[in-house]
């Protein structure tokens, strides 16, 4: 699965959050990272080139800091220029059909404020509706958004968890299921194994075997439960 992260951030070069997120993924071959603020030329994009770029990916992610409940203007300009009617409409050329669209947004306020009755008054899901509508029109699957709130206040433990969750969001083919999460995690551990000494590799192998065994047992019990439920129907 190929993923494209399209970043829009007017202060990209000075952003600690963007720098961190970039480093979270810069070793992953299947993920490409595009910074619109470095790409634009006099606020213009090469439409043909960008459309050719987009069709190469299975998962397209817009990543931006939330500016007045939307993206920075440059991402909107990119959308307006590149997502032309025929290219986008699922019932016309529909070049984006069946791909995934996801949003990664960074918030200065705590995520808990984004709710009815909270100080922001609206949920992230409500605020991101225009992107969901775009995905709908393009025949794309809109995946659940990924939010990073108050990065500047995060502890090292929270950043550590963010790194794992972010990589999962970029590269796990099914970000909703726990089964898929386990398979994804096992593949991550197997990849990092090569960076360890042979003594540590042997220790990690025991952990991998244990996690795999748990995965198999869970799968087996789930199968048994499904059989019982079918009989009870």
């Amino acid at each position, binding site marked *: 699965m190929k993923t494209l992260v399209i970043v829009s951030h007017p202060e990209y070069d000075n952003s600690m959050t963007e720098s961190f997120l970039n480093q979270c993924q810069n070793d992953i071959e299947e993920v490409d990272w595009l910074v619109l603020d470095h790409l634009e030329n006099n606020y213009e994009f090469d439409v043909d080139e960008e459309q050719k770029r987009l069709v190469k990916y299975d998962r397209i992610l817009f990543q931006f800091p939330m500016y007045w409940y939307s993206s920075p203007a440059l991402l909107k300009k990119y959308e307006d220029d590149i997502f032309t009617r025929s290219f986008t409409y699922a019932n016309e050329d529909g070049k984006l059909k069946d791909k995934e669209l996801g949003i990664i947004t960074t918030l200065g306020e705590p995520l808990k404020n984004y709710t009815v009755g909270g100080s922001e008054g609206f949920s992230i899901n409500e605020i991101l509706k225009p992107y969901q509508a775009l995905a709908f029109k393009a025949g794309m699957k809109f995946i659940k958004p990924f939010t990073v709130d108050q990065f500047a206040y995060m502890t090292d433990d929270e950043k*550590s968890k963010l790194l794992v969750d972010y990589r999962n969001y970029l590269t796990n083919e099914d970000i909703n299921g*726990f089964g898929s999460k386990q398979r994804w995690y096992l593949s991550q551990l197997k990849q990092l194994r090569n*960076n360890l000494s042979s003594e540590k590799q042997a*220790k990690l192998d025991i952990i991998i075997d244990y996690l795999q065994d*748990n995965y198999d047992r869970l799968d087996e*019990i789930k199968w048994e439960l499904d059989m*019982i439920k079918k009989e*009870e129907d």
Partner: protein
Amino acid sequence: MEENAWLNQEVNNLKKGETSFKLLSILEGTKSLAAEQSKRLQQAQDELDGRTWSPDKW
């Protein structure tokens, strides 16, 4: 969670001397993954027992 104490200890040992934040983070995440597996295994086993011994089947 207690049954994963050995795993948590092993992960801590693996992290010793490593400096890559990426590697350390993925190793650390193993603890919460194993904890979630244990919780779900317990829940699934309990559900299986409950359904197997349902009074409806007596």
